């Protein structure tokens, strides 16, 4: 019986084994979501430099024309109508888009920074510190957002920063929990132990090895947070917290439309539909990304 007894063969496998990563095409719902979010972002950025009205961008916001007030949609020069101050709804919506998006982005960013830090620290340093941190997170989680926002508004005033902070405080617990649980999984992998065999500290490992490997999971959570953030911003605007006149936001537009709903329902419908579409778009992106992650996780 002849056995194939080869010495450690230098088989140039890298050469003939190409990197086989099946490129799965994006699902339609994800594409739609990305297109939607992309559109909103585009409009938001655009509206800071150009608005479809006379005068510069700033002038457009102050363009009050009582004579033109409460014109319905499809009026000449005002495709979506005008509001109670005669301001063009399209202009308002565009500007509001940039403000709302800015608020939820900043708020999510705050939540991300605080949440990821807590989550990573809790995962790396198990035991008492971890318990302490996670119970603190639980407490914040239990506080109703509206109550939190009111308290903050009372202390800090009703500006945009209050909304951003309220969003950050409201959402960091979710990020912290997701980060921690994802980090705990990654922590068990051999390359983490390997890093310890050549002297890497826990902080280094958390920052350079664990974080990059949990980032995709956290980003999924962030997109979903942004979706909810749009709704939270609207609720806070109803309380008067958020953008101050003349800067509009979707929530403020909704609030201001309340007094005129009988005569001019379009004042509420325009921002309302925009909110629904935006929340939908962010949700599609978040869920679509999560599905992709799940599938990739199962293939490997």
């Amino acid at each position, binding site marked *: 019986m002849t056995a*194939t007894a080869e010495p450690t063969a230098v088989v140039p496998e890298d050469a003939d084994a190409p990197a086989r990563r099946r490129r799965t095409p994006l699902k339609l719902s994800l594409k739609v979501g990305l297109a939607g979010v992309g559109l909103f972002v585009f409009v938001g950025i655009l509206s800071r430099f150009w608005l479809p009205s006379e005068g510069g961008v700033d002038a457009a916001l102050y363009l009050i024309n009582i004579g033109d007030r409460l014109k319905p949609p499809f009026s000449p020069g005002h495709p979506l109508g005008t509001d109670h101050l005669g301001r063009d709804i399209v202009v308002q919506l565009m500007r509001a888009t940039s403000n709302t998006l800015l608020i939820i982005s900043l708020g999510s960013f705050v939540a991300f920074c605080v949440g990821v830090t807590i989550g990573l620290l809790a995962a790396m340093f198990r035991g008492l510190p971890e318990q302490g941190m996670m119970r603190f997170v639980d407490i914040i989680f239990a506080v109703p957002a509206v109550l939190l926002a009111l308290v903050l508004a009372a202390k800090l005033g009703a500006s945009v920063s209050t909304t951003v902070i309220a969003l950050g405080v409201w959402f960091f617990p979710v990020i912290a929990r997701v980060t921690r649980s994802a980090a705990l999984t990654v922590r068990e992998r051999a390359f983490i132990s390997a890093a310890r065999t050549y002297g890497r500290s826990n902080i280094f490992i958390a920052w350079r090895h664990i974080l990059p490997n949990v980032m995709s999971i956290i980003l999924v959570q962030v997109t979903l947070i942004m979706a909810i953030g749009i709704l939270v911003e609207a609720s806070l605007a109803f309380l008067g917290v958020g953008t101050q006149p003349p800067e509009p936001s979707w929530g403020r537009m909704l609030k201001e439309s309340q007094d005129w709903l009988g005569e001019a329902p379009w004042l509420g419908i325009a921002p309302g539909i925009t909110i629904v579409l935006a929340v939908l778009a962010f949700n599609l992106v978040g869920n679509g990304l999560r599905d992709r992650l799940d599938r990739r996780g199962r293939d490997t």
Partner: protein
Amino acid sequence: MLRISNLRVSIGDTPILNGISTTCNKGQRLGIVGESGSGKTMTALAVVGLLPESATATGDVSLNDFELLGRTEEEMTRIRGRKVSMIFQDSLTSLDPLMKVGRQMSLPLKLRNIAKAEAKSTVIELMESVQLDRPGERYQSYPHQLSGGQRQRVNLAMSLAGEPEVLIADEPTTALDVTVKARVAKLLQSVVDRTETSLILITHDLPLVAFICERIAVMYGGYIVEEGDTTEILRNPRHRYTAALIASMPVLRTRRNKGDRLPSIPGSVPAAGDFPSGCPFRNRCAAATAQCETMPETVSNGSHRFACWHPVEAPA
């Protein structure tokens, strides 16, 4: 008897099984041996109807002339556990972590319409049949409280609870410690003997197959490359891959010279779909020639079949 005829399975465009044919008679024990990527697990999944959604299967898989392939999920649910049963490598994830062991083990008993009152005593009997100690205690335990060996016994008992005709065991002892492996292997053999269940043992562990199975089928690249009587094949393998596989397993107390390197097969198993045309093993085989670019014909020597253009010399 279980018959597999020309079973082909693809996932998308990628062929996984390329026309597998074999049989397993009542009470017979067949070992399907291969490394990763050989298609051995897919073959098992095809029999129990657990192929992934994206897989397409053609051919025949029949138990006593009852066709198994292409059944609806509903039909397969009635067949699994009752006619065909399977145990897997990972004993922990095979069990529901939130359900006590006793209760889990009583679930398959429903297949035999055993009344709830009798269930507990039947479960205890089952535990004893697999030599699980302290059955009363184990009944109340959760899976994570049992050791790997104990869990595999539980899995084995559960898979036989429905009194199936065929048991498929996919790497049942691979994750176990050496001494536990030996005990579970002996148990598997005795239980299968006693209940006269046919056994298909899927593994890469050749000594285990030698211990339990009368027949062995060696798989590579989605083909059965050699098949026949276990003792015969392990002693006189004809297909080059079988020979190389056997040679690469060191055996205790048969040491070559201390300085010698262990024999191995150069290269590695290609990913599904990347196997060369013709003989799937030809790009790693020392005896390959241009002729191997066409698929070798199957040669039959009594019950010993193999497909190789340049087989190992038969003993004189």
